[in-house]
């Protein structure tokens, strides 16, 4: 009796595990749950975009996995069950060792900006301020797209050597740069313009003029290992559609 009870308990606990990932097909011609691995900077925009996509595709459920493109690429190369990869740069998309269903396409762009605490206590006015002695600058570890773009931009400005000497914090993803600045771990950081917009009043943004700025390119692709081809390609199609692009634009991203 007691044993039966325990077994029942175990089964009750295990049942939802087995239910995970199963798909139901009702009415709609496309159904299933897809996992979209998206760059951290896409977080808020893709959350809104996914909600809109799910309301227009009732049979499809999207699970959004947010991390740096570098981390997602590592996950994918270790056979993580990701159906769609939305990367913040081409380097990480090209480093994917899993075959793609079709070639990756660029779906949006972004620009860089400097993030500082409210009130801008260090008086940061532009890239050259980041090179000044005693300014602690947050960035990411090498290979994370924001770091690649930042270093490229600083190289063009001839400031890389001086600014990189001021790097004091190497976050796992771009959101970590904002956190470091908000919590006083760093005086400033280079992030995407969209990060400054979505951080709201917790930070100040310092604009980098287009002449010095770099453009971030975001490619998206379906992985050949995806078992939900119809849903995955519908999602990519939606991201590239007028509705999807409008949502991206609302969060400050560039449209195609």
């Amino acid at each position, binding site marked *: 009796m007691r044993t039966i009870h325990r077994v029942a308990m*175990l089964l009750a*606990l*295990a049942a*939802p*595990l087995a239910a*995970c*990932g199963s798909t139901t097909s009702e009415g709609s011609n496309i159904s299933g749950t897809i*996992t979209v691995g998206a760059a*951290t900077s896409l*977080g808020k925009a893709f959350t809104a975009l996914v909600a809109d996509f799910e309301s227009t595709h009732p049979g499809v459920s999207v*699970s*959004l*996995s*947010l*991390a740096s493109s570098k981390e997602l690429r590592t*996950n994918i*190369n*270790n*056979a*993580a*069950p990701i159906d769609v990869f939305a990367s913040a740069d081409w380097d990480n998309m090209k480093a994917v060792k899993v075959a793609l269903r079709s070639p990756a396409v660029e779906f949006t762009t972004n620009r860089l900006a400097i993030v500082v605490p409210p009130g801008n206590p260090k008086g940061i006015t532009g890239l050259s301020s980041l090179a000044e002695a005693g300014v602690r600058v947050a960035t990411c570890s090498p290979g994370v797209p924001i770091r690649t773009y930042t270093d490229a931009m600083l190289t063009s400005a001839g400031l890389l050597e001086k600014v990189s000497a001021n790097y004091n914090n190497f976050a796992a*993803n771009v*959101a*970590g740069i*904002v*956190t470091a600045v*908000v919590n006083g771990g760093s005086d400033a950081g280079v992030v995407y313009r969209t990060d400054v917009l979505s951080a709201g009043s917790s930070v100040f943004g310092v604009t980098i003029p287009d002449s010095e700025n770099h453009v971030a390119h975001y490619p998206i692709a379906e992985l050949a290992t995806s078992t939900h081809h119809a849903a995955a390609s519908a999602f990519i199609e939606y991201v590239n559609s007028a509705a999807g692009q409008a949502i991206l634009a609302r969060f400050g991203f560039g449209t195609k």
Partner: protein
Amino acid sequence: VNKQRPPLAVAALGVVAVVFFALPFVGLLWRAPWSDLGHILWRHDVRTALWLSLRTSLIATLLAAVFGVPLAWLLARTGFPGRRVVRALATMSMVLPPVVGGMTLLFSVGRKGLFGGVLHDWFGLTLSYSTVGVVVAQMFVSMPFLVLAVEGAIHQSDPRFEGAARTLGGSEWYVFRRITLPAIRSGLAAGMALAWARAFGEFGATITFAGNFPGRTQTVSIATYLALDVDQRDAMALSVLMIAVSLLVLVGLRDRWLGHERRVTW
């Protein structure tokens, strides 16, 4: 009545230690979004992470008991060769940095790991980046707590009771079930509570081995860590929840740790 007055330096340093333990809680609880707590914790994504953590940690604890109790018994009651090595191995993941634990799992039983390919090709089992992987990671890091607690309890229980039962004709299995297990139930309960708390709070091994997939591998610890970079109020609300859970475990273990030296008699 043999309480003594402490030397001033000892008292002062002791007070510093107490403040050191207390201040972090004060800071977090002070700034926590109390009025929104219910709202945040009831949100769909938070409930999903919480439910995942509850399920996986409970299963991990039960599995740790299923395999850990026999191992503890072997360590305590038999003198098999290489016992010390086995005990060291069984304790290793307790002192190992969790992220390294996750690495060892990824490169051994992960999909691309040494044995992971076999698991996948022969049994269709993929542990890395899956909910089962979360359970495996939690079990890996939490089982030592259970093994050590149970082994200690077995050491303290009198082997003559088992001997007597055998003399009276009880089979080895009967003796284990009816004499050994009841004698260690307090140690087993404590070991399971500790293992569960460790499994519930697991972060490093989980994110390394199972990644961060909402609904599948994003446990409440991982959600809390990620929330820090998105909305600090969410991070604080989740932390409050986990502090409450830890307090409950501590209250559950109070007889063991908080001074009530109660002798359990059988």
